[in-house]
């Protein structure tokens, strides 16, 4: 029994001396270094390990998977990202243009307007597949990981820069062109028939 009591006191003392060492260890703010720093794990042995989040932020790796961002000027509205997305969080509606409407920064010709380009970040599972399939590399993941909103609907990011009126106008233009083409086709056929 005496042995047990002595054991209890020595083990308790061991624990207490461990905690008192931490109590008087440096309590300054944690130094912010990247994970690749050689000092990264060593500095966790002393001082505080937690950070004061909004005031201090840990640097994140550049290649991490964070929030999606679309460079709309470079998008050719090919719909590949929406098709590859496993959770269907990308919603694209395209309008065919009457002619080539410009070029992306890598020289691809743009022939489609994006009437709608929505990404529902509440659904996104950050797999990054969309960024891989994108032929013009316009959809990317930024290093912005902190995004809190007050309403769930605010997590649906809308990248399309077209107003509904614009979209309607382009749609009408395309329909008009199609109609003209159809009319021309009909006229040609009629002529052919008449000629034969």
């Amino acid at each position, binding site marked *: 029994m005496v042995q047990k009591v002595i054991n209890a006191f020595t083990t308790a003392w061991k624990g*207490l001396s461990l*905690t008192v060492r931490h109590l008087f*260890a440096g309590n300054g*703010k944690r130094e912010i270094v990247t994970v690749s720093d050689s000092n990264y794990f060593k500095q966790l042995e002393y001082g*505080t390990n937690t950070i*004061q989040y909004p005031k201090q932020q840990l640097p994140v790796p550049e290649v991490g998977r964070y929030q999606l961002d679309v460079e709309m000027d470079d998008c050719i509205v090919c719909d590949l990202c929406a098709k590859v997305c496993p959770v269907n969080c990308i919603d694209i509606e395209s309008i065919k243009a009457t002619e080539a409407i410009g070029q992306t920064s890598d020289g691809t010709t743009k022939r489609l307007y994006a009437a709608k380009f929505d990404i529902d970040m509440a659904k996104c599972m950050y797999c990054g597949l969309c960024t891989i399939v994108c032929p013009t590399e316009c959809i990317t993941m930024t290093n912005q990981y902190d995004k809190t909103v007050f309403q769930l609907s605010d997590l649906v990011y809308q990248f399309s820069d077209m107003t509904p009126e614009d979209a309607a106008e382009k749609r009408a233009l395309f329909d008009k062109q199609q109609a003209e083409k159809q009319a021309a086709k009909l006229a040609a056929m009629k002529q052919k028939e008449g000629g034969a």
Partner: protein
Amino acid sequence: MNYYFTYFIAAIGLFSFSAFFALFGVYAERKISAFIQDRLGPTETGKYGSLQTLADILKMLQKELIVPAAADKWLFMLAPAVIFIAVYLGFAALPWAPGLIPSKTNIGLYYIFAIISIETLGILMAGWGSNNKYSILGAMRSAAQIISYEIPAGFAIISVVMIAQTLDLQVISAQQGILAAEKIKFAGFWDVSQIGGLFSWNVFRAPHLLIAFVIYFIASLAESNRAPFDIPEAESELVAGFHTEFTGIRFALVFLAEYSMMFLVSMIAVILFLGAWNTPLPNIGGVKLATWTTGVAWGILWVVIKTLSLVGVQMWIRWTLPRLRVDQLMNLCWKVLTPLAFACMLISGVWRLWLM
């Protein structure tokens, strides 16, 4: 008439002290726990988060007081008051400095131990009144624990009383320094009546009281429901034990009682074992350190320093040692502490007869 006026001032003073101490205690607890766990603790409200507990109490005051539909309303509502008042009344008999004591009674120690036992009743009322299995389990554990640990604590105290031959806390305090009316011997052989300081404290006057002090300290942890004896609260098994159903200011009162109890039991330990309001500095020849550092202001300073360091040790222990199981606690109490305390009491009797 003036008489009653003084009473009220003393009562209000003690209440504000216990409230202020609870605020400080909660802040200190959070900071100490944070530093032990390599965190920073509260930092946002006030400089270094110093206003955090004030903000917490303001929040609690505004909260709704919910009484569960099936609860025993009167028991439920009265319980926090009973818990707190039992502890608060204990403060009445604590001596703060030579000649400074709210209620100078010659059975102070007996009174304190009688009155703080009522806390168990309040906890039982809370547990039963809540009409909740977790609460009643917590309350039963608390009753079992406090009643059990009162026995080793009582024996440890009796061993001091046998040395001191009085229940008057002011007399017990005075015996442990240069103001003693009788002869004081360090460890039973060296006359230190004129030297005072550390050497005349009870733990050194009779060295077996050092063991009694450790026993009392462990038992006092149990009586104030502090880890590793916090099975009445056991937030992992019992949600939060007997105070699960309490909200707002009622919950705050339970916490106020816990922190006041910590201070109270630590102060009793200081008074009985660690020289009360006496200075730790001895008179060395012409350098009369003890004489210089004895007085009302010094007395308050010493007693507060000593008590706060014991409270600090309680917090340190809480954030180090894990909670024990209920049977382990009962084993410790009945098979180790009680026999040891009993032995201390016997030695005290022999000591008093042969060495003093």
